[in-house]
């Protein structure tokens, strides 16, 4: 199938097998290998990207479903020498070891800060009507869709907390 995918602000025309997941389209067709394939079944979060500003598991999406959507990957956040605040904080706090889950962790963390700003609740939010606390339990719950077998979770939490002010944890309106 012929489709056009918009990734990190650039438009790409692709001739693609309809079975191709968004993740495989990024990795194999656009050479954007920053999004990782850890399980291919939506269980690990390594493939997390943003679609229209919301985090999704790109292994559970077909590329053909995302024509017209704006996709953001880790490559779109920053690069060596010009890292985003979250990326820099992950380096500073050793929020990773092998690095394989890291792009997904960072994409997830970026969305999570926005979800906080918008007052979205989580599994550990007691009062759904009040703005959620920026507590460790809230951060950890909201990051629990991203597995890290090296187990850098303490560093991940510290990095997120450190970068939150610079990432602008504020209310935004993203399209569904």
């Amino acid at each position: 199938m012929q489709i056009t995918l918009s990734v990190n602000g650039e438009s790409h025309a692709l001739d693609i097998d309809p079975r191709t997941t968004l993740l495989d389209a990024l990795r194999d067709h656009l050479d954007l290998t920053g999004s990782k394939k850890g399980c291919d079944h939506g269980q690990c979060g390594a493939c997390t990207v943003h679609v229209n500003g919301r985090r999704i598991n790109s292994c559970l999406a077909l590329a053909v479903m995302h024509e017209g959507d704006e996709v953001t990957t880790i490559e779109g956040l920053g690069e060596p020498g010009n890292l985003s605040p979250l990326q820099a904080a992950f380096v500073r706090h050793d929020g990773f070891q092998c690095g394989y889950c890291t792009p997904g962790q960072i994409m997830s963390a970026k969305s999570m800060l926005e979800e906080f700003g918008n007052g979205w609740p989580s599994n550990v939010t007691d009062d759904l009507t009040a703005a959620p606390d920026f507590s460790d339990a809230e951060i950890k719950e909201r990051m629990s869709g991203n597995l890290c077998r090296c187990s850098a979770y303490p560093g991940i939490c510290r990095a997120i907390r450190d970068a939150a002010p610079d990432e602008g944890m504020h209310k935004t309106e993203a399209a569904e």
Partner: protein
Amino acid sequence: MTEHLKMDEVQPRLLDETTQGAIHRPMPRPEGPLKVSGRATYAAEWKMDNAANGVLVRAAIPKGHYKVDASSVEAMPGFLGVYTDRMPRNAAQGTMNTNPAQIGDEIQYLGQPIAVAVAETFEQARDIAAALKIDYDRDDDVAAGPDTAQQVNEKDDPFDQGDLDRAMADAAHSVDATYTTKGHNSAAMEPHAALAVWDGDKLTVRASLQMLGYNRNELADSLGIDAENLRLLSPYIGGGFGSKLGISPEAIAASVAAKELGRPVRVVMTRNNVFETVVRRTETRQRLRLALDADGKLTGIGQENWQSNLPEEPFAEPVDLATHFLYAGANRRYGQHIAIVNRSAAGSVRAPGEAVGMLALENAMDELAEAAGIDPIDLRVANIPETHPENGKPFSSRSLAECLRQGAEAFGWSARQAPGARREGEWLIGMGVASAARTNILQESKARVTLNPDGTALVETDMTDIGTGTYAILGQIAAEMLGLPPEKVTVELGDTDLPKASGSGGSWGAASAGSAVFLGAKGIRRRLAERLGCTPEDLRLQDGVATGGNNRRPLAELMDAPLSEIGHLETGAKSNDVHQAGYGAHFAEVAVNTVTGEVRVRRMLAAMAAGRILNEQTARSQVWGGQIWGIGTALTEGLDHDPRTGHIVNNDLAEYHVPVNLDVPDLDVIFVEERDDDANPIQAKGIGELGLSGAGAAITNAIYNACGVRVRDYPATPDRIFSHL
């Protein structure tokens, strides 16, 4: 030139004399910016025009023979080929250095790789692999697990001594208990992957591997080619934990298919494939016996274990590894029983031996302390042996008592109460402790260090960084020795064209490869001293300036061309004459819900002594990893096998539960200051596995202290706790 050292003698503590300040301190990983921006290239991600894609086909029966009917899929879109040649039954075991078992058309477990289907695209190959017709000749005589195995290999331990039965009978207090642990999967986040390219007789394979020197020989042997013609590249590895120690089916399959097709072939394992085919940690049953006299001294220790593996597979989980040397006691007995089963190969998973052996030993020590009415820390400290209790060898640096005491102080151990005494609503709170120990091993290693006149340096070795921090610490060692800021040092790893190091495994990488870098830099220091006109002992290097013998010169004035030295470390008498291990103590506080049996780990602390700590930040991350694996081992992780076929049924990350962020509280780590002079010239010991040794036992001991339930069957899922409440 080569700076060579055979570790026969204690070496001077040169890294305590140097003044650059590049070592010890926390330093972020130099490769970090590449990893956080998605620019670090893992095995499957190398851009290779014209690469075909292969998907492994795996046996759907547990035992028998098979024949592949390639004609059944030849007409499918994108079909390039189906290959069965040289397919290994499973990966090579760590440091095997030869081919893994290649058993032709025979099947010995469900999930065994039997062919690779290759097509133009991944989607096509996946479809072809699923549609391929396979004729099976099924053998129904299946040993699905240890209970139904007909063959059990027994091993008596040469270190058995005294009369344990007698010691148990005479003991003032004793424990005789049986513990079980389920199997474990490494579950590294990056699935195994390989990309093979032939150029005439020369083969290059980009793969995800821990020990390139060994892996090169293993792959060459598997393919029947000369190792000289094979180059392996693994600069970035998405976690290993033992699962990438030996050459694995995807690398062999990719190489075979690439040769046949005359074009590059990429083979990436699926997650199911990783669970079903990659080495598992065996399930264990362990009988622990401890005998204590009226003075609180151990008189006997016994640890007998039952485990399983495939036929002829050269590996046994060394369950009693730490038990041999951790505690005193004159009467000792061990035993190992390996059931031969139709399950995937058992092999090394992080801290083979201690990861499960220390659960049983340290739980039994807790039970003994309870029985004798002695504080668990006091019991342990009182039974630290003076020399190795079985062979009388002296110990190298050993701060077990300091770890227990400093850890207890920092954790607030004195606030611990009797089981059931501390309640918060539905929750009962408790504390637990366990010792940690991990044998320290040194392996031959080489590294090339090059100092440039512009004040930059290059470190080159085939050593790998599997997330352990190798890039950081090798650069720090070179920077410290050469008197350069660490950012001036570039580290190149993961290429068999570079000098051969130990590889990553057995927690020996940092000390072994680190010593090779140390030696290479030491050779450069020697040459700089000559040029400056001073002795190497008088030379001081800092921030690109050399000082010594009343001379002070910038490096650029001492050299007009790069200076290059190969550091070559060999193990020596110290490995045999002195017993070396890292030690530590784990503390845990848990809450147990009396209504649901749910366990929440509230906090953990690890006090670790592992010689010189090369980088406090990456070392701490390694210990965090160990503590969290301890949480998984204690509470959530366990492979379940189909009782009819032996097949691993929880073969993905949804059903095999590794800890997630919310399962982990903030964790404390203390490093107890130590130098191990007997270990190596940099006085450092391994820490990656030490952090796991005993960690889970501290949690289950805390569960007992909270609610009075003794966990003897792992993992302690809520239903298992609840049924005893």
